[in-house]
């Protein structure tokens, strides 16, 4: 079975600053009404750029099989 990597953002910890949005090369991240960042898993390729840039370091790249 193919293994995929996807970013996961815990909503309750997100400040919705948009740092992740800015660096995502796939446009997979959006800010839901200024409340939190969310990932469109159909676009996310799990590159980890958002995880590296998140000021709080709360974004995890998870392996999904």
């Amino acid at each position, binding site marked *: 079975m193919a293994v995929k990597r996807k970013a996961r953002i815990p909503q309750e910890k997100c400040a919705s600053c948009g*740092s992740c949005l800015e660096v995502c090369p796939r446009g997979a991240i959006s*800010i839901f009404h200024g*409340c939190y960042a969310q990932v469109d898993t159909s676009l996310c390729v799990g590159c980890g750029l958002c995880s590296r840039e998140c000021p709080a370091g709360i974004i995890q790249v998870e392996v999904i099989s």
Partner: protein
Amino acid sequence: MKQKHWYNYLWIWSILYFSLGFANILFAWLGLISFCLPLLFAIVGGNKLFCNRYCDRGQLLRFLGSQLGFSKRHDMPAWMYGKAFRYGFMVFFFAMFGNIIYTTWLVSSGAASLQEFVTLFWTFQLPWHWAYSGNVAPATAQFAFGLYSLMLTSEIMALAAMLYYRPRAWCAFCPMGTLTQGVCQIKCK
């Protein structure tokens, strides 16, 4: 590579703002833009588009920390992006903003005299008299000195956080960011 837009260069405004205030303190009044615009976006639009796209400070931090590589990128402790600290810092920050307004009122009523200082971290007074020529009401100048002090203090905190933590570490506990997110969350319910 992403296409560059005019708003990708707003980081220049940060440098321009502090330079202008160094030459003439009255330019510090322009700092109110950074207070009003994010609130306007949140209240009218129900979004954080200011933080996400137009924040000059966020862009400057990213430019210095990420693009020029000045950030050490250490992980921030969890309490620093936790709700207690974020809301506590926001209350403190706006209490200090309230103090600026109170001092301005004291000067305008004649109960206090104009302090031609920029005060860093609410403690250290830096002489700044060259930036004020005395051609406006003392209260107008007092508010400018106060606002510039607040802006410069928070800029130094943001730069220090950028150097040690991640580039936009300031954004994790920025008082304006916390306030506008709170507004958005209320609007979302």
